[in-house]
C-alpha cells in the first residue's frame, strides 16, 4: 500500500528570522524536499528611482545611501562616478585615494555581516555574528570620525568628498589595519575546517558557470562559480589600476565557495588599504563644482564593484537641475534570478542556507 502524499504549499516570510530583510518565498514541498519555489518581493519598494527625478543631483546622494544600507559608501561612490562621467568633472588626487580607502573599508564591513549572517543561518546561533559585530564596530567608529554617522554616511560629493579627514583618522586606521589580519586568522582557525560548516555547505546550492553568466550574476556569487570577473580589474574606475591585489575565485559554485571568496576578499581589501595609506598625497578634496549642477544633455552608465556585485547607475540628463531618469542596476536583484534552480531538490533547512549565501539586501532588490 503506497503512502498517499500531496504537494504542500509553505509560505516563508516576509517576517521571518532567517530571511535577510522582507523577502517572501512560496515553496511547494513534497515531504521536506522543495519541488518548486516562487520568490516574491516588493515589500520594501520605496520608489527611489521616481524620487530621484524630483531632487537635484546632490540631493539624490542621501537616497542612494539607503539602497544597500550595509554598504552606503559604495553606493555613494557609484552614483557620483556616474554623474562625473556624465558632466566631465575631474576629481583631485587626495579625494581619489580617500574614496578608495573608504570603499575598501566598507567592503570589509559588509562582508563581515554577510559572513556572520551566513554562519547564523548555518546554525552557529549568534556567536560568530557577535564576533563580526565587534570588528564592525571598529570600522563604524572610523566612519563616524569622518562623516558623523554610523550607518548612512552621505559622504561623497560630485567632484570629491564633502570634507577632509580629521587628524585622528590615520593613526586609528593604522591601528585597525594592524589588528584586523589577526582577527581574520582567528575566525579561519575556528571555522575553515569546521565539520558542521563543511557538511552543511559543501556541495549545497551549486550555481554552474554558464548559468551564472547567463543570469548576469556578479560579485562573489559569480567569482565563486569560477568566472574571474571583477570590475576593479577589468574596467578600473577611480585609481584602482595603481594598486596590486588578487581576485579570489572559487571552482564549485556552492555555498562554501561563496563563503571562502568573501573571507579572502577581506584580506585583499586590507592589502589595498595599506598601499593607499602609504601613497596618500596632500591637497584639497573637492573640485570647484557649482551648487546647482547642470550637466549637458546626454546619458552615462557608471558602475563599480560593490561588495554585493556590480552596482551601476544609468543617468539621463536634459540639462536641468534634476536627473531626467536615474536607473539603478542592483546586483542583488540579478543574483536572485537563479534562486529557483539553486533550491529545487534541497530541503527547507538547506534553502535557508542557500539564500543566505547569496547575500542580498532587500533595500537594493526592491529599491
Amino acid at each position: 500500500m503506497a503512502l498517499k502524499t500531496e504537494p504542500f504549499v509553505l509560505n516563508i516570510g516576509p517576517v521571518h528570522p532567517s530571511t535577510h530583510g522582507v523577502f517572501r518565498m512560496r515553496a511547494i514541498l513534497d515531504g521536506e524536499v522543495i519541488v518548486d519555489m516562487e520568490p516574491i518581493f516588493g515589500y520594501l519598494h520605496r520608489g527611489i528611482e521616481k524620487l530621484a527625478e524630483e531632487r537635484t543631483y546632490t540631493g539624490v546622494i542621501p537616497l542612494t545611501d539607503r539602497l544597500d544600507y550595509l554598504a552606503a559608501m559604495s553606493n555613494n561612490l557609484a552614483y557620483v562616478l556616474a554623474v562625473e562621467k556624465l558632466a566631465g568633472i575631474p576629481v583631485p588626487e587626495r579625494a581619489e585615494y580617500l574614496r578608495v580607502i573608504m570603499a575598501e573599508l566598507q567592503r570589509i564591513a559588509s562582508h563581515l555581516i554577510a559572513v556572520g549572517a551566513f554562519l547564523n543561518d548555518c546554525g552557529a546561533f549568534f556567536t560568530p555574528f557577535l564576533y563580526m559585530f565587534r570588528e564592525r564596530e571598529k570600522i563604524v567608529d572610523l566612519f563616524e570620525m569622518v562623516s558623523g554617522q554610523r550607518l548612512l554616511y552621505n559622504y561623497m560629493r560630485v567632484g570629491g568628498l564633502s570634507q577632509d579627514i580629521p587628524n585622528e583618522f590615520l593613526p586609528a586606521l593604522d591601528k585597525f589595519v594592524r589588528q584586523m589580519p589577526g582577527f581574520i586568522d582567528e575566525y579561519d582557525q575556528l571555522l575553515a575546517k569546521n565539520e558542521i560548516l563543511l557538511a552543511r555547505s559543501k556541495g549545497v546550492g551549486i550555481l554552474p558557470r554558464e548559468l551564472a553568466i547567463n543570469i548576469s550574476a556578479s560579485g562573489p556569487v559569480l567569482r565563486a562559480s569560477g568566472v574571474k570577473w571583477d570590475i576593479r580589474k577589468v574596467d578600473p574606475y577611480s585609481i584602482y589600476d595603481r594598486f596590486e591585489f588578487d581576485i579570489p575565485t572559487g571552482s564549485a559554485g556552492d555555498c562554501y565557495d561563496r563563503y571562502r571568496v568573501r573571507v579572502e576578499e577581506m584580506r585583499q581589501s586590507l592589502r589595498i588599504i595599506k598601499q593607499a595609506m602609504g601613497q596618500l598625497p596632500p591637497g584639497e578634496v573637492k573640485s570647484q563644482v557649482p551648487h546647482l549642477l547642470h550637466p549637458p544633455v546626454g546619458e552615462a552608465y557608471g558602475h563599480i564593484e560593490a561588495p554585493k556585485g556590480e552596482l551601476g547607475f544609468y543617468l539621463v540628463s536634459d540639462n536641468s537641475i534634476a536627473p531626467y531618469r536615474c536607473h539603478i542596476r542592483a546586483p542583488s536583484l540579478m543574483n536572485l534570478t537563479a534562486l529557483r534552480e539553486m533550491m529545487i531538490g534541497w530541503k527547507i533547512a538547506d534553502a535557508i542556507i542557500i539564500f543566505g549565501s547569496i547575500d542580498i539586501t532587500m533595500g537594493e532588490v526592491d529599491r
Partner: protein
Amino acid sequence: MTVALSGREIASKLEQQFPGSIVESNENSLVVKSESLPELASLLKIAPDLDFDYLTAITAVDYYDYFEAVYQLTSIKHNHSLVVKTRCYGRDNPTLPSVVSLWRGADFQEREIYDLMGIRFDGHPNMKPIILWEGFQGHPLRKDYL
C-alpha cells in the same frame, strides 16, 4: 579596460546581415527597430568576434512621444561592451519583444519594467507584476503619473 565598441561600426556590420533594421547610430550606441531585436540580439550573442554573453542592465526611459529600452551588453571573453536601444511608440499598450530566451538575467528586469512603466514584453514566460501588487492602478515611473 573594457572597450566600449562604437555604435557606428557595429551598425554597419549588422546592416549587412539584416538590412533595414537599424534606425540610427552614433559613437556611443545604436538604435534598432523593435521587430528585428530578437534576431539582432541572437547574432550579437552568437557571433564569435562579438560574443555578448552578459547582459548588464535593461532600462526603460519615458520620452513623452515614445518609450526607449536601453540594453547594456558586455562580453566576458573579449572584454568589450555595447549599448543597444530600441523604441516603441504609443502610450496605451506598448509592447516589445523579450530577450529572456537569450539572457535569463532579463527575467526580473522585464517584469519590473512592465510593472513600473507599462511596457509588455512578448515571449516572456511569466509576465506579472513583481514589485507592486496585483491591482495597483497605473504605472508609477511614467512621467504623467501623479
